[in-house]
C-alpha cells in the first residue's frame, strides 16, 4: 500500500521523485538486502555483486548526492524532497539507506567549506562518481567513546578527562592523525574517504575537537574486519585505525573554535535523516503485515477480517503516519534553518526508530510462526529496526542531550 499524501502542495516533480525512488527501493534495494542479510560472513556482503549493484545504481541515479548543491553536480534537493527520498530508501532497506546517506558525509561537509583543494579532491570527484568508487564514512564513534562523542552542550562534553582516542596535531602544513575508530563506523571498511571527528585540544575535553577528511588509501590507515551483527547486515560497519596519518592542512575543516556547534549541526542533520529512514522502515513492516493479513486464512477467513488484527493494523498505521508527520516537520525545519533546533531532530530519531521497532514487532505477531522464519523478510526488518535504537546515538542518551536545550 502506498501511503496517501497529506501534503497538499506536493509538485509533479516531487510526486515523480517519490515514485522513482520507490521503484528503486522495491526492485533493487529490497531483494538485494534480503540476499545480503542471509550471508553468514559480513566479509561476503561487501564481496557480493548484489551489494555493489545497489550502490552503483544508487550512484547512477544520484541518491548519493541528494544533500550536495547542484553547483558541484549534486542533486541539491530541497529538504522536503530529501525527506521523501530517505523515507522511500528506508522502505527498501534501512541499512542500505544509511550506507548511501553516510557515503556523502566527506563531500557534504566539504561543500560547507569549499576551498579549492576540497573542491578538486573531494566535492567534484564525489559528485561525478557514478560507480560507487568514491564512498564516504562517518568516523566518530570509538571503542571507549560512544555517547561521549554525541553530547554537545552537556557538562561532560568539556571534561578534560574525556576526549577522543583519535587525535590530531599540526606539523607544518600537515595534520598528523593517530588513534582508533570503533567497529560501528558505517561504511567503515568500504570507504575511500573518512569524515573524521577527533580531538585537537585534549584540555578542552570532547569540545576540543576537529573535523577533517582522511582518504583511506593514505599510508598509516588500516581497516578492520566488517562487523558481524544482529540487524542491518547489509550496512557495512567496521574499525578504522590511524597511525601517524598525514593530511594536508586544508583537509581539517573545523577546529576546536567551533567544534561543538558544528557537531550540533551534524547531529541535527543525521538524526533528522534517521527519522525519515525509519519512518520508511516502519511503513515497510506495516505494508508487509497488511498484505499478509489479507492472504492468511484462519477461522475460515483472511485474518484481516478478524477484529483484533484490524485493530492492530490500524494502530500500526497511526504510528507510521505520526512518524512521518514529526520526521518531515523536523527535517524540513532544520534543513531550512541554521542553527537548527536539534531537539526536534532528536525527537524525530527517537520517535521514528521506536515506532519502527514497535510496528515491526506487531507485524511479526501478525505473521505468527512464519514471522519468525527466514521465509518472509519481516524478521529481518524487525532486527534492522532494533539496531536503530542504538546507532546514531543511543535513544536514551540522545533524549538527555536534547533535554539540555530546554
Amino acid at each position, binding site marked *: 500500500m502506498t501511503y496517501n499524501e497529506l501534503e497538499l502542495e506536493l509538485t509533479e516533480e516531487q510526486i515523480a521523485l517519490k515514485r522513482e525512488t520507490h521503484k528503486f527501493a522495491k526492485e533493487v534495494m529490497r531483494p538485494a538486502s534480503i540476499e545480503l542479510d542471509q550471508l553468514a560472513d559480513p566479509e561476503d556482503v561487501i564481496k557480493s555483486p548484489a551489494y555493489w549493484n545497489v550502490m552503483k545504481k544508487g550512484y547512477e541515479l544520484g541518491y548519493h548526492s541528494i544533500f550536495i*548543491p547542484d553547483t558541484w553536480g*549534486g542533486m541539491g534537493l530541497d529538504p522536503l524532497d530529501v525527506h521523501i527520498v530517505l523515507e522511500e530508501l528506508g522502505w527498501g532497506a534501512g541499512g542500505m539507506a544509511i550506507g548511501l546517506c553516510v557515503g556523502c558525509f566527506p563531500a557534504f561537509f566539504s561543500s560547507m*567549506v569549499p576551498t579549492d583543494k576540497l573542491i578538486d579532491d573531494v566535492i567534484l570527484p564525489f559528485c561525478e562518481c557514478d560507480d560507487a568508487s568514491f564512498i564516504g564514512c562517518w568516523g566518530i564513534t570509538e571503542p571507549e567513546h560512544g555517547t561521549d562523542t554525541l553530547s554537545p552542550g552537556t557538562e561532560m562534553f568539556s571534561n578534560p578527562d574525556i576526549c577522543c582516542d583519535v587525535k590530531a596535531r599540526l606539523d607544518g602544513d600537515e595534520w598528523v592523525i593517530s588513534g582508533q575508530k570503533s567497529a560501528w563506523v558505517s561504511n567503515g571498511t568500504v570507504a575511500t574517504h573518512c569524515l573524521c571527528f577527533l580531538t585537537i585540544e585534549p584540555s578542552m575535553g570532547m569540545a576540543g575537537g576537529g573535523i577533517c577528511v582522511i582518504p583511506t588509501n593514505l599510508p598509516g590507515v588500516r581497516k578492520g574486519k566488517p562487523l558481524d551483527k544482529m540487524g542491518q547486515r547489509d550496512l557495512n560497519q567496521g574499525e578504522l585505525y590511524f597511525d601517524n596519518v598525514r593530511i594536508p592542512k586544508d583537509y581539517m575543516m573545523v577546529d576546536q573554535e567551533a567544534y561543538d556547534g558544528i557537531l550540533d*549541526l551534524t547531529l541535527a542533520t543525521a538524526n533528522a535523516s534517521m527519522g525519515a529512514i525509519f519512518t520508511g522502515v516502519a511503513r515497510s513492516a506495516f505494508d508487509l503485515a497488511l498484505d499478509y493479513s489479507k492472504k492468511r486464512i484462519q477461522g475460515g477467513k483472511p485474518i484481516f477480517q478478524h477484529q483484533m488484527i484490524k485493530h492492530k493494523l490500524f494502530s500500526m498505521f497511526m504510528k507510521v503516519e505520526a512518524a512521518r508527520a514529526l520526521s518531515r516537520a523536523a527535517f524540513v525545519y532544520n534543513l531550512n534553518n541554521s542553527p537548527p533546533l536539534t531537539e526536534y531532530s532528536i525527537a524525530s530519531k527517537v520517535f521514528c526508530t521506536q515506532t519502527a521497532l514497535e510496528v515491526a514487532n506487531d507485524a511479526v505477531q501478525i505473521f505468527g510462526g512464519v514471522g519468525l522464519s527466514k521465509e518472509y523478510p519481516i524478521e529481518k526488518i524487525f532486527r534492522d529496526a532494533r539496531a536503530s535504537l542504538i546507532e546514531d546515538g543511543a535513544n536514551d542518551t540522545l533524549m538527555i542531550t536534547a533535554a539540555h536545550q530546554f
Partner: protein
Amino acid sequence: MPIFESTEKMYEVLGGLFTGLMNDEEVLEKALKANITILFNISEPSGQIWLDPKSQGVICGKADLKPDVTMDLSGDTCHNFWLKNISLPVAIAKRKVKTKGPLPKVLKLLPLLKPAHEAYPEIAKANNLPL
C-alpha cells in the same frame, strides 16, 4: 563601536561590493544560473541588502521581494565574513549568523560569493575599515 559607523556607510561599502560583482559578466551569469534571491538582514547598524540577479541586482534597504535565502547577522560579522576571518559554518555554529532557506541553496551561495571575498580587502582598506 560597530565597524560600520552608520547604515549609510555600510550600504556604501557593501552595496558597492555587490554592485561591482553584478557588473562582472561572469559573476552575473553564474548568479542568474543559480537563480537565488538573497536577503542580508543586518543589525548594528540596522539595514537590509538584497541580491536579486533576476531583476534589480543590488538593493540597499527594504524591498518588496521574496528571498530564497535570508541571512541574519551583524555588520561586524558581515565585515569579518567578507574578509574570510570567519567561515559560514563557524559563524552559524557560534550563532553569529542565522540562515533561513533550503540548505543546498545556502551552500550554493558559497562559491558564488568567492569573488566578493577576493575583492573585499581592497574595498575595506580604501574605506579605512580594520583588516
